């Protein structure tokens, strides 16, 4: 019964994706048309007659009213086409498919690192309130939210690449003397393992270290803070005090009774940060020349590449909705009080 209710809820949420995507698309469409700049001027260049430029704008429907342009876009979308990027001349869907693995791999590893550090740190800080560990955790959290990410990335590059020469420079996912590798999944580390290509795995991991550290430092902060806050609250609760007084081992009390009850808000923060990172780590990608979605969207915005911007927003909105759906389902699984 509960399972069927959950399935029904999941199905309703999946159906909700479509109207949300439409609204996001409409807003993006409107904003891109309102802001000055159009891609035709950039693509056609200066060596073109006024008549030819007008013809190109007509072919791209840019001389039509807004609602007509939107209708044409929806028509193409219904046929599975996100349009052609003006900056890459490739299909937007192909561009996104090529770049998504780079971003997903980077963000996922960074989030894993953040979670592995932030949650234990938050737990220890909550247990040893006002101790030096708690103070250090607070300082790290403040640094994480206040330190400019681009500064951190550049400093890490300067120290570990330029000065110490321990790690590769900002040349993307593989070193400059690369080994060409036909992608299987597009996730380099996974592809390397699947192919048994240890040198490629080594290159991919080394290239991931600095951008992951940069991103993880920033994403760690809110996770650590939330973990500390919720754990501190949970550890003060009656049932935890009861569990302690009944003689349960401290580790069991903290992890099974404390953390499990604190997990829901922590997971919410993780989901929010994960979604944000997937769509917004542009600066990290610029600093490390990482060929992912962030750099793609950044170039698209600078060049008023409408199809690319719209495609990117669609993808990120979809990812957000999937992440939050997963969060809700996990929350329901964790917390029996949650009923849908």
């Amino acid at each position: 019964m509960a399972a069927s209710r959950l399935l029904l809820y999941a199905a309703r949420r999946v159906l909700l994706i479509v109207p949300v995507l439409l609204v996001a698309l409409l807003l993006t469409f409107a904003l891109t048309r309102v802001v000055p700049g159009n891609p035709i001027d950039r693509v056609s260049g200066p060596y073109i007659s006024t008549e030819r430029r007008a013809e190109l704008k007509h072919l791209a429907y840019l001389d039509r009213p807004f609602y007509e342009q939107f209708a044409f876009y929806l028509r193409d979308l219904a046929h599975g086409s996100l349009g052609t990027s003006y900056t890459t001349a490739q299909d937007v869907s192909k561009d996104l498919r090529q770049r998504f693995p780079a971003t997903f791999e980077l963000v996922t590893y960074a989030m894993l690192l953040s979670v592995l550090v932030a949650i234990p740190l938050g737990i220890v800080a909550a247990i040893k309130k006002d101790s030096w560990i708690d103070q250090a955790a607070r300082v790290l959290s403040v640094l994480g939210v206040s330190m400019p990410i681009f500064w951190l990335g550049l400093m890490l590059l300067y120290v570990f690449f330029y000065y110490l020469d321990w790690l590769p420079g900002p040349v993307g996912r593989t070193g400059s003397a690369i080994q060409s590798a036909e992608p299987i999944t597009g996730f380099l580390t996974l592809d390397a393992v699947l192919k048994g290509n240890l040198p490629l795995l080594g290159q991919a991991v080394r290239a991931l270290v600095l951008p992951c550290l940069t991103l993880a430092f920033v994403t760690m902060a809110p996770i650590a803070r939330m973990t500390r806050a919720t754990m501190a609250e949970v550890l003060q609760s009656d049932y935890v005090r009861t569990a302690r007084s009944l003689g349960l081992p401290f580790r069991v009390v903290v992890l099974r009774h404390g953390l499990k009850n604190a997990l829901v808000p922590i997971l919410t923060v993780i989901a929010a940060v994960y979604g944000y990172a997937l769509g917004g780590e542009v600066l990290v990608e610029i600093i490390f020349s990482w060929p992912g979605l962030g750099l793609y969207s950044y170039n698209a915005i600078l060049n008023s590449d409408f199809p690319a911007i719209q495609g990117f927003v669609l993808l990120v909105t979809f990812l957000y909705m999937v992440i939050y759906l997963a969060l809700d389902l996990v929350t329901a699984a964790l917390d029996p009080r949650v009923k849908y």
Partner: protein
Amino acid sequence: MNDRDIRDRLTAVTRRDVLKLGAAAVALGAIDPLLVACEPAHGTQQVTTSKTPSDTLVVAVEGDIDTFDPAFTVGSKPAQTTIQNTFDQLTQYQQIDKTVAGVNFKGVDTESINGMLAGDYQATANSVVFTLRQGLTYQDGTPITAPLIADGYRRVFESKGISYFLLQMAAVPDPDHIRALDNTRVEIRMDAPNLLLLKNNTMHNTSSLDVKDVRAHATSTDPWATDYFKKHLAPGNGPFILDEYVPGDRIVLKANPNYYGTKPKLAKVIQKIVPDANERELLLKRGEVDVIMVPPVKDLNSLKQDSNLQVLTFPNPRNFFLEMNNKVAPFDKKEVRQAVSYAIPYDSIVKDVFHGYAQTNRSIIGNGMPSSDFSFWKYNTDLKKAADLLSAGGFPKGQGAPAITITVRADWEEAERSAILIQSNLKQLGLNVSIQKLAFAPFNEQEQGKKLQVWIDEWLSWVNDPWYHMSWIVKSDSPTNYVSYSNPQVDSLINKFTLSMDKEARLTASKQAQQLVVEDAPLAFLCGPNWNVVVRKNVKGYVYYNDELNRYAYMYKE
């Protein structure tokens, strides 16, 4: 414990607190000297070795491919470079040792044109007949014949690629003016004989695609497969082949084993996409790459001190302008434009903005372009003359003048810094001047729509010909005459001499046109920025071409 004890306990400063505070202060105080100790001593360099294989050149480039179609390339130099190195053209410039503005370098003589795909060419009154070399093939082995070349040109016209504009400028109005005489000879007829055709044919935009590949990817709505070839590089006939392209990451070329000409010394060229100039510099210093394009100008002097590197700088006819919309007040008055020209701190722009890596420019025809003549120049920085002219223009001490907005591209540091220097001087004349930064797309849109009041931009003519150059910038009906300058005398000269065959008359008339343009001051010639490339010490063979595209066939590593 009572309240007083609790209060005392909370407020008391213990010895432990003092020790903790002291340790923190020492630690903070130690950070700075520690960082200083870690920093390499000024004036000393580490000797860094290149990490790239000796037969592979790794080039850090600034951007990605925007199109692979030679007929449609516009803004992306990496795309144009890729096409230039994978396709040969009918003709090419002669390489020579040059000296421009006191700088010696290997460059090209744009008045001496040799055959490339064409082993020979014969120019008659109204036509040029190109005789193709024997044994030419595309990289897939398809023989290159005259009919294929003619079809390639037809494609340029009928797909309305950018290059058809260039052919029309050389009095070749349609593809029927191009035909194959037999299997080895291509004739291009001109409506009027001119010197531009051979020069225009050296450009990568005129590269001919194999018509077999075009037909294989043509559709009913796209008979010339323009959509397909924007996304895919056609099999070429140049010294290199596209080996791999990973969007956003790298463009890899490998030597073409079937190339008819001198085989490249390099086996491979990896063009790594690194958008940030400072990152490219870091990579070069560490030996991760061998060449960087568009290096940060502010760092060129310090890079020159690095014994592992060489800074290649090429003075060239590139113009860096302050463009004034001649149809928008107050720049619709010649006196005001002249006043602004007198107010510009030219020396500061060359020294402080470009750190000496720019030439003074005193004419619409820059240094290194034939007929360049700075003798008509009169606008040396003189605020008093500027004030007098502003007054003559109806705005004494700037009173009554409309507010002025200098627009610059947001990602262009040199333009912004120049604008700040210009603003400072114009304010001394009593003018109300602000600076507006726009992202690339809106800047482009407004510039091409002629909606800007005054802005900074630059121009480089790929064909090193004064009339070609002036046709684009100062001819009244040119689509790229963004300042809306109009002078019937200048137009008349351009119309008469662009297609003229009389070399001497062309050069003489060019000086006349330059004098008129300097007098009218439709634009202010801020300077001529050098083209700069920084390479590792062991990289040799760089040849400067006027289109600023690398020719990897001549480059090698010692």
